[in-house]
């Protein structure tokens, strides 16, 4: 099927005008919150649907290129769609469509409290700038859109700005995102200078001429810039603060999609703009991947704020994606493009899968927040009886993110494992060992992720409610459930029928690497590395379902007793069981905290106030056992202090006297003229 350019152009124009209409419409309706809510989110939905069409058309081979020279200086606005761009547009749309549906219901309770006009406008701007940034074809277009995306998401994070914690989170996000932006800016300028072009096509053509220190410096700067957006450790500190503070559908978009644009940037840098580098680039990415994955999940395990737990899992999943991307770069260094293709497919497939299940989980957490008005898991419990449908959706998301069959996370993690295991074809022992340790790190991550989602689902949804809020929770409205249902179905479909996506992905990586990936697949089977490994997700699902159905039948055939009696939980002869006897999230996480105490360095405090008459009567016990972040202690704390003391010194220049400031300007001007002479 050939997709003509007119169709692509129409889809692009339609998408942009929908987002534009949504943003302007929401602002025009500023005085009628309900109208602003409906207009903003309906147009966002329409735009997202058109983006979905654009992504699919692009993956089917459609291309488009638009350039408007007059808008921006140095090259103007240049947009284009290749298969990689189209794939990321698809990822954005897959999360944006359900998010817009969900927001229609979720934002109802914001009416009268926060500005829905501003929110609607920012959301449309956010979606538009994300879809456009992956289409940017020159440096300035990219940077302008990147900044627009960051600012729009900043305003969305600040929606509930009367909360002090939100204010702090927003500030941290603002600082970190601009530090990343500065790295990107310098990197882009260096690369433009070295290749003599501001166009991405010019970078690709001239990259071979960029050598030595410049090449490495460009890579480091761009990797740090994109890495900070992706939230890799140790550049992650904004992520677990900012994502939970935003409204839940925005959290879904930020965690599900926005951080993936950092991955998009890294893939562009590694496989397109610089196309290959020394082995240490890939090795460094694998190291960062391992640290992000393992530490991300370990921090999630001790986190009892449901949304923050999910945010830490985004750090973990970015790590898993980077195993694919970093592995791919190493394979490319050793001239194994078929394996590089396999590794990159694994990373990109996990990108899509994470967008689906993380959006689902954030929406589930949002539904719980909506119903219980708390994010603290210790105050939840028993929600499976009060919100049965949300519980099923959250469970599907949990099984998917824990990478268990037959859902989608399993397929991409399986592919990642295969690409890492096939690394024995590289004839270098140090690299082999790096891959072996990566395999171990990924395995540990997946085991810990399973444990963490048992905690997340088990403590929040199962057993008895732990507070009155949880006791009185009610199932959420139709639009929120519909959005989650869509994503839950997507988790299953992407898990049992991966060939639908692999078909597009293998073309995408072939286009980037110029070689077909080392895998064959049909509608029911994936084979990697010749006969190295096979999996048939569809058969697994079918066989599991068949066996599940056959066991109850067999039990009846053998006349097993199928009676069932309900009675209280056994409690060592206790009279009544209350929620206070339940295992809590803290106690569930405690063995992990002890085993990995080196990393958490927990600070345990126990204060007991005894009755003045007798020590056998206790008035109050306060117990706290908090994990400290080694990054705050080792990196950001000292950095913060250094900045402060530097700022104190710089203050000397600021006398408040306008004449002195004018003198500064004059001196600066003279110096610049002398230099630029």
């Amino acid at each position, binding site marked *: 099927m050939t997709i003509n350019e007119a169709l692509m152009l129409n889809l692009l124009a339609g998408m942009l005008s929908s987002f534009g209409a949504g943003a302007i419409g929401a602002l025009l309706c500023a005085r009628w919150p309900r109208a602003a809510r409906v207009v903003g989110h309906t147009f966002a939905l329409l735009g997202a649907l058109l983006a979905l069409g654009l992504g699919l058309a692009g993956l089917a081979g459609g291309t488009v290129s638009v350039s408007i020279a007059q808008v921006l200086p140095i090259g103007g606005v240049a947009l284009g769609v290749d298969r990689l761009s189209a794939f990321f547009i698809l990822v954005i749309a897959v999360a944006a469509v359900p998010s817009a549906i969900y927001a229609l219901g979720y934002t109802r309770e914001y009416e009268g409290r926060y500005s829905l006009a501003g929110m609607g406008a920012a959301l449309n701007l956010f979606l538009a700038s994300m879809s456009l940034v992956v289409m940017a074809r020159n440096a300035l277009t990219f940077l302008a859109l990147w900044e627009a995306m960051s600012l729009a998401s900043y305003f969305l994070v600040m929606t509930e700005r009367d909360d002090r914690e939100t204010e702090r989170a927003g500030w941290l996000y603002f600082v970190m995102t601009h530090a990343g932006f500065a790295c990107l800016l310098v990197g882009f300028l260096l690369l433009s200078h070295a290749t003599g072009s501001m166009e991405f096509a010019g970078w690709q053509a001239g990259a071979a001429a960029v050598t030595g220190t410049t090449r490495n410096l460009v890579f480091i700067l761009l990797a740090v810039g994109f890495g900070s957006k992706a939230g890799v450790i140790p550049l992650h500190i904004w992520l677990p603060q900012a994502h939970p503070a935003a409204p839940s559908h925005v959290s879904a978009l930020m965690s599900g999609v926005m951080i993936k644009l950092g991955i998009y940037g890294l893939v562009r840098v590694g496989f397109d703009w610089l196309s290959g580098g020394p082995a240490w680039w890939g090795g460094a990415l694998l190291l960062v991947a391992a640290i992000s994955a393992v530490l991300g999940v370990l921090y999630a395990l001790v986190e009892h704020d449901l949304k923050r737990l999910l945010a830490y899992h985004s750090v973990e999943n970015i790590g898993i994606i980077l195993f694919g991307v970093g592995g791919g770069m190493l394979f490319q260094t050793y001239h194994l493009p078929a394996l590089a293709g396999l590794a990159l497919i694994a990373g990109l497939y996990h990108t899509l899968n994470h967008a689906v299940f993380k959006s689902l989980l954030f929406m589930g957490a949002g539904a719980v927040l909506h119903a219980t008005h708390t994010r603290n898991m210790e105050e939840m419990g028993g929600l499976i009886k009060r919100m049965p449908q949300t519980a099923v959706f959250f469970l599907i998301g949990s099984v998917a993110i*824990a990478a268990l069959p037959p859902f989608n996370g399993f397929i991409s993690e399986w592919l990642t494992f295969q690409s890492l295991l096939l690394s024995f074809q590289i004839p270098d022992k140090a690299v082999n060992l790096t891959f072996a340790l990566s*395999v171990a790190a990924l395995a540990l991550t997946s*085991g810990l992720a399973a*444990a963490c989602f048992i905690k997340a689902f088990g403590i929040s949804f199962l057993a008895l409610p732990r507070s009155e809020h949880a006791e009185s929770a009610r199932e959420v409205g139709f639009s929120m459930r519909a959005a989650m249902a869509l994503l839950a179905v997507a988790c299953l479909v992407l898990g049992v029928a991966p060939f639908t996506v692999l078909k597009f992905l293998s073309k995408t990586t072939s286009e980037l690497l110029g070689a077909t990936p080392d895998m064959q697949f049909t509608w029911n*089977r994936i084979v990697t590395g010749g006969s190295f*490994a096979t999996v048939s997700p569809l058969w697994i699902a079918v066989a599991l379902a068949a*066996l599940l159905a056959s066991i109850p039948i067999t039990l009846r055939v053998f006349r097993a007793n199928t009676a069932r009696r309900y009675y209280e939980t056994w409690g060592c002869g206790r009279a009544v069981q209350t929620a206070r006897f339940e295992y809590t999230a803290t106690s*569930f996480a405690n*063995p992990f905290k002890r085993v990995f105490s080196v990393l958490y360095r927990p600070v345990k405090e126990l204060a007991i106030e005894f009755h003045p008459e007798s020590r056998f009567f206790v008035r109050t016990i306060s117990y706290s056992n908090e994990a400290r972040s080694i990054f705050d202690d080792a990196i950001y704390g000292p950095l913060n202090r250094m900045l402060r003391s530097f700022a104190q010194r710089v203050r000397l220049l600021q006398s408040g006297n306008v004449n002195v400031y004018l003198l500064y300007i004059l001196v600066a001007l003279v110096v610049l003229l002398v230099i630029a002479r």
Partner: protein
Amino acid sequence: MTASILIEAIQLLIVALAAPLLVGSVRKLKARLQGRRGASVFQPYRDLRKLLVKEAVISENTSWIFRFTPYLVASVMLLSSLVVPMLTTRTPLGFTGNIIVLMYLLLLATFFLALAGLDAGSAFGGMGSSREMIIAALAEPTVMIAIFAIALRVGSTSLDEIVRRGADDSLLLLNPGHLLAFVAFFIVALAETGRLPVDNPATHLELTMIHEAMILEYSGRHLALIEWAAGMKLFLFLTLLSNLFFPWGVARTLEPLPVAIAFAALALKVGALAAAVAILETSIAKLRLFRVPELLSGSFTLALLAVISFFFVR
């Protein structure tokens, strides 16, 4: 086609029917080693029958997860028994998944068991779930690195291929990497199936049980399914250990005679490993929970050494 269906049916029946016998034999041998007479090796069958005729008492606090889990766990074990090469290197359903798929299927069962442990709202269930999961999570790296070591030797992660190429390799047991990987995998198998020194399957002492704490609320047919599945899991792990590391006697064709020999070989190998488990359980004590990570990191080191040795001797 008929032969394929027959082979799969035989595999399913072996695992389903022999699992209680395996559990009974280990218990019997342990009893003899400890100077007791012990119950008959067929006692587990009687236990299962007794559980099946009793009604299930279910906690009022539980949800559908609690009732669904026993069926899922048993289904996962039955599905695994169709995929593991038990008698031949041409397991008809072998294409559905390689060894990594198998490990993730088993993790799916553990995932739901741990959720069910939390479902009743009892402190024991939660404690069991939490402990079971830390052991499962820490065992995972060893499993994957041991798989990596095997894949390095035979150049495949497909279960059938591993057995076939292993059988062709006459110097297999002289390979240090192979033996290291075996020891690592053996330790992990003990941890995954809840045997000593990680967990004690015979204990009901509140503070030491792990797996038993997790399933404490189960009764009737649900408990029967879970006990049966635990037996099948032990059987599957011992089969994996014997066929992946000592691939002798496994049939290359689907002819009746080689399959019959393979059956006898399987019985011998699994029997020998079961005896090893019984002797080990008699001679060592259970480790404290917070010493278990040391054991597992030890097994991880062995697996990693296996991988390194393959890099250096190839």
